[in-house]
């Protein structure tokens, strides 16, 4: 159940960027190589969002496909499941180019009209 820790970390990240305004949408990018269960994360987010700027916010998860790159032949390919060997040269020195993301991409916040006018 590390989704609870991750959900708390998401709320803490959002709080640093929301400036105290209520948040309506939180967009999070989750790489395929992370062991994060989307349903579980949404459930935990709803729980830890209570009494924070994220209360009632919708969590939108974007799953980022896993793309690997072979150091030997520079081939790049997308994988759904192991093996991680290069399909071109069978090399084992591979690194993830994408798929390890776990980041808050953006948020939508509600702001007072007056605050906007005061700023212009």
């Amino acid at each position: 159940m590390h989704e609870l820790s991750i959900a708390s970390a998401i709320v803490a990240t959002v709080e640093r960027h929301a400036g105290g305004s209520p948040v309506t949408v939180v967009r999070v990018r989750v790489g395929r190589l992370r062991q994060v269960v989307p349903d579980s994360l949404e459930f935990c987010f709803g729980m830890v969002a209570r009494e924070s700027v994220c209360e009632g916010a919708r969590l939108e998860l974007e799953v980022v496909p896993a793309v690997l790159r072979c150091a030997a032949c520079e081939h790049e390919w997308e994988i759904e499941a192991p093996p991680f060997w290069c399909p071109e040269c069978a090399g084992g020195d591979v690194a993830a180019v994408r798929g390890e993301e776990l980041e808050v991409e953006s948020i939508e916040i509600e702001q007072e009209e007056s605050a906007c006018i005061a700023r212009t």
Partner: protein
Amino acid sequence: MHRTHVRVLEDVLDANGTIARANRADFDREGVTVVNLMGSPGAGKTTVLEQVVGSLPGVRVGVLEGDVKGSFDADRIAALHVPVTQINTDPSFGGECHLDANMVRSAVPMLPLAEIDLLVIENVGNLVCPAEFQVGEHARVMVSSVTEGEDKPLKYPLMFRACELVLVNKIDLLPHLDFDLDKFLYHLDAVQPGVTHIELSAKTGEGLDAWQDWLVKAAMRERIPA
């Protein structure tokens, strides 16, 4: 009221990463190599540690025990006269399923860093969560026992990909099990090609010299890039 879009682009575990780097800086300042020992409950993490920590030639060892509850493992290590510090992720019931950088941070003042060369952090028994949280370690070792089944690397690829060494424990039981060691090693190589592994039995002592040797070299920073 109007709606504003705010770009954030921040790693969710950035705060954990920052604290992990602070822990690492403290360990480096004292010249202590830190190994994060992970694996499922019952894989034999404490036993493989117990068999070697008291007798590493030229290396002074300390142990940080992470458990949801209790000090059973810490008591076993303390009996070997090795300095041991205990962290409980929850003092009552149902605590965190992993150690994070902040929990280790809270234990740093209690660790005898000036008196040790190697600190082994035994994580909470779990094959999923600990892999997500760096704690400031230099290397990660996981213990996987032959009683767990040969499909485990495929089921928990993140954990098997996160470590520099896999200890295949309880090989003394192989004659009694349907476990296919070659198949396990094939699956291991499929999720982390070329990863180092040591086959051992904490019970009979087979393979313990290789594990001991790996720890000594780790403490000397021979295998681990700075």
